[in-house]
């Protein structure tokens, strides 16, 4: 920043310098640059084709067939999609992750935002230690995290249950039907608050100090600065974390699939849409239908992401 300021003082405007160079470039043969382009893009394009578009196309192809143990494979057109749209298991699964998204994501992002602002305020002692502490859960693999929380939640020998028994209180049943979604949300929040906090914190660090100085000169306090400068500046970063969270929530899989082992009566094989797709393919032999479900889930995610972007942009416009 400082360098830029001195450049401005000296009256040298970098953009102008760039403009003056441009005409010279135009003389270089156009063919050369045109031929080089694809080479630069090729590594990405090839991987994109092989690892993304090809499987996607294959899944789309699969979703148009039905395979049976008896009778082999038949082309069924869009029948699988019709079935899926009426499939209560799929609809409940999508509904459940939508509910999860609506409750868990705002809480998580709010916490991440509070932590990021607190760290950025410079008022915390041992800020580095705290920052690392909040971030560390993200470094724990989600499988390990879920197993650990699964133990903590245990109704017989988990620490919460033991403590409440010592105090003669009814043990909280974290793994029961009514608590499960909350227990899952807690695990996911624990895992990802630090990750989102780091993104927001990094965004806060890019705000030029001059703005704060100017605001202070104008008599703004810390809260006012946070509200009028930091929050608006964080909007793109918040949007990014929100988008990641949309995708993460709708693809919820690891945590429920692991808790299934200790709460099989609560978490069914169709508890979340992603878990349902997996069970269809790997326990039900219904690869085609699994492809259909995955495709529809992808569509839901695209729509949800689009809605999020749209609302955010509309807010900005008004």
């Amino acid at each position, binding site marked *: 920043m400082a360098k830029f300021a001195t450049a401005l003082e000296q009256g040298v405007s970098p953009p102008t310098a760039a403009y003056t160079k441009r005409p010279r470039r135009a003389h270089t043969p156009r063919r050369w640059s045109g031929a080089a382009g694809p080479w630069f893009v090729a590594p990405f394009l090839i991987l994109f084709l092989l690892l993304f578009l090809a499987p996607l196309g294959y899944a789309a192809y699969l979703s148009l067939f039905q*395979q*049976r*143990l*008896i*009778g*082999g*494979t038949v082309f069924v057109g869009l029948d699988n999609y019709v079935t899926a749209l009426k499939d209560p298991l799929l609809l409940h699964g999508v509904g459940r992750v939508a509910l999860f998204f609506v409750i868990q994501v705002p809480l998580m992002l709010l916490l991440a935002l509070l932590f990021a602002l607190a760290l950025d305020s410079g008022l915390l002692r041992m800020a580095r230690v705290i920052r690392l502490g909040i971030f560390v859960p993200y470094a724990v693999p989600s499988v390990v995290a879920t197993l650990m929380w*699964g*133990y903590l939640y*245990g*109704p*017989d*020998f*988990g620490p919460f249950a033991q403590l409440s028994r010592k105090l003669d209180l009814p043990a909280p049943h974290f793994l029961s*039907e009514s608590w499960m979604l909350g227990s899952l949300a807690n695990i996911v929040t624990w895992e990802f608050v630090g990750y989102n906090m780091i993104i927001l914190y990094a965004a806060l660090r890019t705000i030029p100090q001059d703005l704060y100085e100017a605001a202070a000169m104008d008599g703004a306090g810390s809260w006012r600065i946070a509200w009028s400068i930091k929050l608006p500046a964080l909007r793109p970063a918040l949007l990014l974390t929100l988008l990641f969270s949309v995708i993460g929530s709708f693809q919820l899989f690891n945590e429920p699939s692991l808790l299934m*082992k*200790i*709460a*099989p*009566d609560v978490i*069914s*094989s169709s508890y979340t849409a992603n878990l349902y797709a997996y*069970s269809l*393919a*790997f*326990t*039900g*032999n*219904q*690869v*085609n239908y*699994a492809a259909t479900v995955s495709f529809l889930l992808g569509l839901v995610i695209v729509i949800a992401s689009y809605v999020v972007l749209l609302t955010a942009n509309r807010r900005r416009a008004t």
Partner: protein
Amino acid sequence: MPRSFVPTSSMSRRRFLAATGAVSLGAALAACSGDSDSGGSSASAKPVSQADIDKAMKTPTQLTFWTWVPNIQHEVALFEKKYPAIKVKIVNAGQGVAHYTKLRTALKAGTGAPDLAQIEYQAIPTFTITGSLLNLAPYGASALKDQFVDWTWGQVSGPGGEVWAIPQDTGPMGLLYRKDIFDKHGIQVPGTWDQFAAAARKLHKADPRVYLTNLAANEPAAWHGLLWQAGAKPYATSGKSTLSISVDDAVSKKLGEYWGGLAKEGVISTDPDFADAWYAGFNKGKYATWLTAAWGPAFLSGSAKSTAGTWRAAPLPQWDASKPASGNWGGSTTAVIRSTKNPIAASQFAQFLNSDPASAKMFATNQFSFPATKALLTDASFTSDAPSFYGGQKVNQIFADISDTVSTSFQWPPFLDQAATDWTETVGKSLADKSDTVAALGTWQSRLTTYAKNQGFTVKGA
């Protein structure tokens, strides 16, 4: 009993889940490839001549064998010593789910499948429906019939005299109980299920922290074993595509009322098994019995060390005390994959591994598998083992006797994974939720029927 059994037995239960969770896309895909008409099922296939067998066994060959059995190289070494030209490459492709998923994928891909694989009894029909197993009858396997316990042979053979696999170990079901807890509360070892239910009520009333048993709500394998004991015939296939499903018939309903009732009263627990809390439950005396299989005694002695000396074994309680019966839970076989290029060598290996007296005995003494051969079950050196964990009781003898009472005609569905998942989500859930288990049986029945019809089966007796 030595700890080395632990991996084997933890797999014993995964065995089922495996088959449960595992039968993956390959199954469906293999089915679509059109060669699904049963794998070499033509029992009319001509027997391979002894000359051909001799020739093949002298030709340098490498066999690949996918198995999860720990330290199986010792048994394999016996085979390689007898047939130096044949080398067996052992691959541990994972236990349970991982193993079957990889096998399915390789079968579907058309390359990379092993010559032989470890397959559990209940998974055999799930693999034969896709034509993935080689019929071993033409390779001399039929001659082994009398060496194996009758019900195990029933499990591996097809209706046309096919032999799909060679039995390796088994899991006839019995009852392990805490003698100290029984003595303390004056409970006799229950001989019938009625006595068992009375004991459950009495015990839980006397000490609300203790349950007579834990019927895991996530263990379809145990339920199937109990169905088997009760004489149920939940699945029957006739021909290739006709299937009868009766998981909510009178026998099943009797079981549903019995266990659903006990669960509803809250006198038994329904904790998920093979989970942390379950292990803790054994160590802290939450469960006074375990309805388990013959691999259970060795498993428990490794998992509940703090209770050593307090356990004893007995047969399962009976529905009809005059006709003792039991079911099977767990155990596995060696099967030859149909795509093998060395069918003779592979089938001879499968037979040798499980029927050669030295090899079969080694499974019992090294891996602590419960034997499938008649010879071993009457071998004094096996049956006289008296582990201190069970107060010096001859546990093997008890389970050897139980093995004789296992019915020979129990059949598995050609889509075990689906049956098991659906059980957990209907019947298992009703046990855990203390809701109507008999109604849940109906839901299980209708879910399976729908699934079978969707898979193209003609469903009878629904």
